[in-house]
């Protein structure tokens, strides 16, 4: 009895510490964005703010490129998601169901591509985008983001498509469907949970990307939110109120998506390699 109570106390203490550590930066982000500069740069860091201003939020919307960049992020992430779902569904269907020479190579190159780090790819991709005339464009980033979303989406869908009963597809083929209509009418509707995972991760991985955006798009008006943040510090002088307002708003879309689709998250985390 005594032992289990001690265990409960330890459990609660550890949990409280972890939660504080995980959540406090978010709280601090929000609180900083509504404090006056006098309080922000004053000698006392008030955990509960003593002043209130909308100045930083107003400046964020009127004096920075944030609104444009937020829109850029939405366009880039949305387009990348739709494209990688289309490319991924077709590719996954081919790998999971069709027999053709090179199928195994295609499957393997998916994993290899997924694991090739952006640190190796960003320089040659920069050159490639430069020669395609796609630097400082949203299209260039969309194409670059496909390099990590397509392997991810396709691999995850291959695994899921294999669990769809092949008999249903054969029946559809006998009824006069071709491979494409079978995929669209039979396989995809039955794979809805996997499509949710794929869409969730494509969108958030694209939303969160930083390196390619920083390197390929130097022009502030073509940058997404992540790379745009760097402009809020000029020569080591930070506008922290404005910066934290941008941070809070830039975090919102992925937080909403991950929270809404929480039960789908685990499946996507390791490409389905860890079975729950």
């Amino acid at each position, binding site marked *: 009895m005594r032992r289990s109570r001690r265990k409960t106390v330890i459990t609660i203490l550890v949990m409280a510490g972890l939660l504080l550590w995980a959540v406090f*930066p978010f709280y601090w982000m929000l609180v900083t964005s509504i404090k006056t500069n006098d309080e922000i740069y004053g*000698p*006392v860091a008030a955990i509960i703010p003593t002043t209130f201003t909308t100045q930083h939020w107003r400046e964020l919307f009127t004096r920075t490129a944030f609104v444009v960049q937020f829109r850029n992020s939405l366009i880039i992430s949305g387009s990348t998601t739709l494209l990688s779902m289309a490319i991924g569904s077709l590719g996954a269907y*081919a790998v999971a169901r069709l027999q053709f020479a090179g199928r195994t190579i295609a499957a393997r190159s998916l994993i290899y591509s997924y694991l090739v780090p952006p640190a190796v790819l960003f320089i040659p991709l920069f050159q490639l985008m430069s020669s395609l005339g796609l630097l400082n464009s949203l299209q260039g980033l969309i194409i670059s983001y496909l390099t990590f979303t397509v392997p991810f989406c396709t*691999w995850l869908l291959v695994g899921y498509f294999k669990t769809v009963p092949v008999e249903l597809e054969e029946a559809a083929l006998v009824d006069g469907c071709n491979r494409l209509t079978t995929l669209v009418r039979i396989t995809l509707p039955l794979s809805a949970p996997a499509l949710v995972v794929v869409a969730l991760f494509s969108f958030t991985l694209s939303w969160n990307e930083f390196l390619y955006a920083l390197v390929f798009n130097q022009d502030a008006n073509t940058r997404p939110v992540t790379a745009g943040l760097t402009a809020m510090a000029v020569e080591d002088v930070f506008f922290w109120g404005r910066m934290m307002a941008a941070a809070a708003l830039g975090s919102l879309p992925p937080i909403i998506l991950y929270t809404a689709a929480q039960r789908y998250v685990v499946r996507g985390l*390791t490409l389905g390699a860890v*079975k729950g």
Partner: protein
Amino acid sequence: MPMADSSSSGVLTAVDLGGSRRQGVARLLGRDWAGGFLFSLPMLIVLFGFVAYPFFSAIWLSMTNKMIGTEGVFVGLANYQKLLASTDFRQIALNSGVYTFGSVAVKLVVGMTAAVVLHEGLRPRNLWRMLLFLPWSIPVVIGAYTWRWIYDDLSGVLSQTLIQTGLVDHYIYWLANKALTMGSIIAVVVWQGTPFYIMNFLAGLAAIPQELYEAAEVDGAGAIRKFFDITLPSMVPVIIIVTLLSTIWTSNNMQIVFVLTHGGPQGVSEIYPFTSFKYAIELKQLAMGAAVPLMFFPFMAVIIYFLTRRMLQED
């Protein structure tokens, strides 16, 4: 949607070439070769055009002296030799090792602790899980800027709170004090990356059959023995995959260093992906920038090899 207008019969079967020839083609290229190639074409364009081709062109680039705005000529392994000979490089390799393995080790311990504690109960479990997951869900660069503000020398909440509570009597330079820099950086990497471990470990814990624990209890095993005899051994496959993936991602990610210290002070936090960025973009030496991560690629390739084998096992 490149597939939208493909004709139906063309997708289903090979173009009509006459019975025997069609069979020959099918034997050579596979029963569904036409559909297979058409369906996987967009995917192959991405994989080969935008991953494989850039990868190999990076290798070529690293053996030239290309800079932004100049044509490069072939110089063999000169860039690699230059890197190996520099004293900075030893420092960077050491930094990268400390940064990567330090981060991964702490994430592993904190992640396992959090998962076990969460698994124990304490309602509402989903709420706690959601809150603990927050740091992973937001852009890394946003988390990094938030921490840079928390770590701020004079106005940062960490220093000021420690002074106000009387725990210390002077400002602490979390990022500028060379003795603290790497630790402060690793703390942010751990903050950002641990949720990934927690979620996967929770899934692993949920898959352990309850009977194992009941049997151990009959034998009189305590909580600690149960953890080392049952929990840990059952979790080995999950731990391996999570650790390997995380090692690749952590070691190649320069965002947190870029935001917090830019490699400083005096290079104590310079890790190799940042060095590559510095050479290629800030110094415009594309070839040197390409050579840096490739120096470390053999190490990466070993991990990728093992991961790929594990991930393909299920096929």
